[in-house]
């Protein structure tokens, strides 16, 4: 009996030492992600892929807030997943620059199926693409149709009208907005950066700020901050202590008439069957070209240190193809939009309505994502201060310009 146990143990140890012996013939890959909410859907996509190619991919998501740090740790230690969801701009570029991500320039479908703007989010300084663009999100205004109808209010088409609507609601004792500042991110990412394309324009104008030709205390920025200050007067009572998670509940229960948030929230309103939900784009001020923040949010990248580079590349090529993108789009949660240049069908009526708001508008990413992510905290702190009435739009613009200068100077070195 003892001998048998010893033998078995020895065999087990040997098996762990020589992984090739126990591994099945098919190649097994792993996929890292922060979308732990979508495990079932993504697994379905990966099962489909296994049917097609025989390559088995295991989905290993992490909690969103810890994804970047966990991924970095895994890559540093050589235990990173073969395939991974990729953040856009700085967060993923840093990984590519450190040599962790596979360059994907030889996937021809990338250039054919995606716009230059979509690829920009995953482009290294030398023009190498290191991830397949996957999904984008937009920042818009959700409104309660029933409350608007009861008070004879129209959907505002200019920012001035938006302020009038908010005033009319406030006069009747209805909270106009469900936004707060306690989370320290949504007031910037959803509200201010959502407003910004209406004031500074699209990618071309953004490039002028990135080159230092325009300063963030120019007329456009001061106007945007002044309008933000005007809008912040309509934040609900106790907005200082309201977090982003509180917004959907407050708006969904009809305690506020509008909620400025991301398209990714749209699925949460299914929990409120009584809510008569409508959406409109954050309106531009009178005389400005309307823009919209349509932000590239996720891509798919390959691990440069993978044991199976062939299979990883093959999966990414499939992911960049129209067939692959259609399969993936079917599984995207509501409010995430595929970035492929092909008519892809999406489920969810409201999600399609939100996508429709893009029509006829100048689209751009979140303004600071490409070069100015370093001033994120400066921006949040100043917007919070404006909302609290502790600083002026002009002073905030000066702080923005100073931060811009600092980043440009560091870059020039």
């Amino acid at each position, binding site marked *: 009996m003892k001998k048998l146990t010893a033998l078995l143990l020895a065999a087990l140890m040997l098996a762990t030492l020589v992984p090739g012996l126990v591994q099945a013939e098919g190649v097994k890959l792993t996929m890292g992600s922060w979308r732990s909410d979508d495990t079932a859907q993504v697994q379905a996509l990966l099962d489909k892929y296994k049917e097609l190619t025989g390559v088995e991919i295991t989905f290993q998501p992490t909690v969103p807030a810890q994804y970047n740090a966990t991924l970095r740790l895994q890559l*540093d230690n050589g235990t990173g997943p073969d395939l991974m969801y990729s953040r856009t701009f700085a967060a993923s570029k840093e990984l590519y620059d450190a040599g962790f991500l596979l360059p994907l320039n030889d996937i021809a479908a990338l250039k054919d199926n995606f716009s230059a703007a979509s690829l920009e989010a995953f482009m290294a300084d030398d023009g190498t693409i290191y991830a397949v663009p996957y999904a984008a999100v937009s920042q818009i205004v959700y409104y309660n149709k029933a409350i608007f109808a009861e008070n004879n209010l129209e959907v505002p088409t200019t920012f001035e009208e938006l302020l009038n609507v908010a005033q009319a609601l406030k006069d009747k004792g209805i909270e106009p907005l469900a936004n707060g500042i306690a989370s320290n991110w949504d007031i910037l990412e959803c509200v201010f950066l959502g407003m910004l394309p209406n004031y500074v324009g699209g990618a071309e104008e953004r490039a002028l700020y990135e080159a230092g030709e325009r300063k963030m205390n120019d007329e456009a920025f001061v106007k945007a901050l002044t309008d933000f200050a005007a809008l912040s007067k309509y934040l609900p009572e106790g907005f200082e202590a309201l977090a982003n998670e509180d917004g959907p509940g407050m708006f969904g229960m009809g305690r506020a008439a509008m909620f400025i948030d991301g398209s990714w929230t749209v699925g949460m309103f299914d929990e409120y069957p009584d809510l008569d939900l409508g959406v409109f784009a954050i309106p531009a001020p009178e005389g400005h070209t309307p823009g919209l923040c349509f932000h590239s949010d996720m891509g798919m990248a390959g691990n440069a240190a993978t044991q199976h580079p062939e299979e990883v590349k093959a999966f990414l090529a499939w992911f960049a193809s129209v067939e692959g993108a259609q399969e993936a789009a079917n599984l995207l949660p509501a409010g995430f939009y595929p970035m492929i240049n092909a008519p892809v069908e999406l489920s969810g009526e409201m999600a399609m309505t939100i996508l429709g708001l893009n029509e006829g508008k100048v689209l751009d990413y979140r303004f600071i994502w490409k070069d100015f992510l370093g001033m994120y905290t400066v921006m949040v702190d100043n917007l919070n201060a404006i909302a609290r009435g502790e600083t002026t739009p002009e002073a905030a613009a000066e702080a923005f310009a100073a931060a811009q200068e600092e980043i440009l100077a560091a870059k020039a070195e």
Partner: protein
Amino acid sequence: MSPKQTGQRLGVHPAPQVPAYPASGRIMKGSVNLQPSLRARNRHSLNPGGGYWFWYLLPALLVYILFMAYPMLDSVRLSLYAGTTGTRQYVGLANYTRLFTDPVVSTRFWGAFKNTWVFFAYHMLVQNVLGMLFAVILTSRTMKGRKIYQTIIFIPCTIAVMVSGYLFRLLLNPQFAGPSLRAMGLSALVRPWLGDPRTALNVVSLVSVWQWVGIPTMMFVAGLQGVSEDLLEAADIEGCNAWQTFWHIKFPLILPVVGMIAILTFVSNFNAFDVVYAMTGPNGPPNYATDLIGSLFYRYGVAGEHPIGIPEPGVGAAISTSVFVMLLAGVLPTLRATQGRD
């Protein structure tokens, strides 16, 4: 305790008795032979000399070194490096220089340092004084329903901080608690308590005090129950009032417990993180008013700052090492002042 004392004490007490025969019959045969040798060894074991004691310490020592001392020293080493595992580079004291001279990082550090002291002061002055008051009341001879009150005071300690923190976040928010407070005529209390930099830290501290007051209460109760009844009776007969009995008899006798509680409060509050994370968030909003050393360390060393979220373990380790030194400087004098009066 001196070796002489040890010998005396052991001399007074009879040697531990070994049962003459084991209860089980199966090994009786062997035990007959074993018995004399056991006895002989027993006699010697009083002080066999040499380093035999070391083997008794070894398991605990190994666990302590492996899981406490080594990681702690390694974190000191880590504070001299930049980058994460694969790209780690020795940078000398650069992390400390950054921590104490960089305008942003040092402002955050000293802000968090100050907030942590305020947070600690609340626990020391409010939680522990309340705990003492509750304990004296609970151990009073005329107290009725002691068990019930004791349970009520202790219940919050059993609730997860994430849960109680979240509930208080709602309770303290005008949007959720406002209507009921107004209905009760308490509209003065309808304020964004956690959103105002002037009130947020105080409120967070008080919630934590509410949650944990049961721990010092229990320990003080245990301490006070150990106070000899004779002394209290004697005090009664001498005509001491309640305050005199407390201040001159009970308090000096439970001083070691008070010292222990003070140290525990000090240590656990300098590591506090969960209540801030649950009630306001890892950034210590509003405007870093509730940022504690714990949340600062989490942001720099573990999670990284939103939106990039790449941590700097070196800076995190520098924060924790600096705090470790400060804790040591605080704990050692307290220990010396209150403990070790054998």
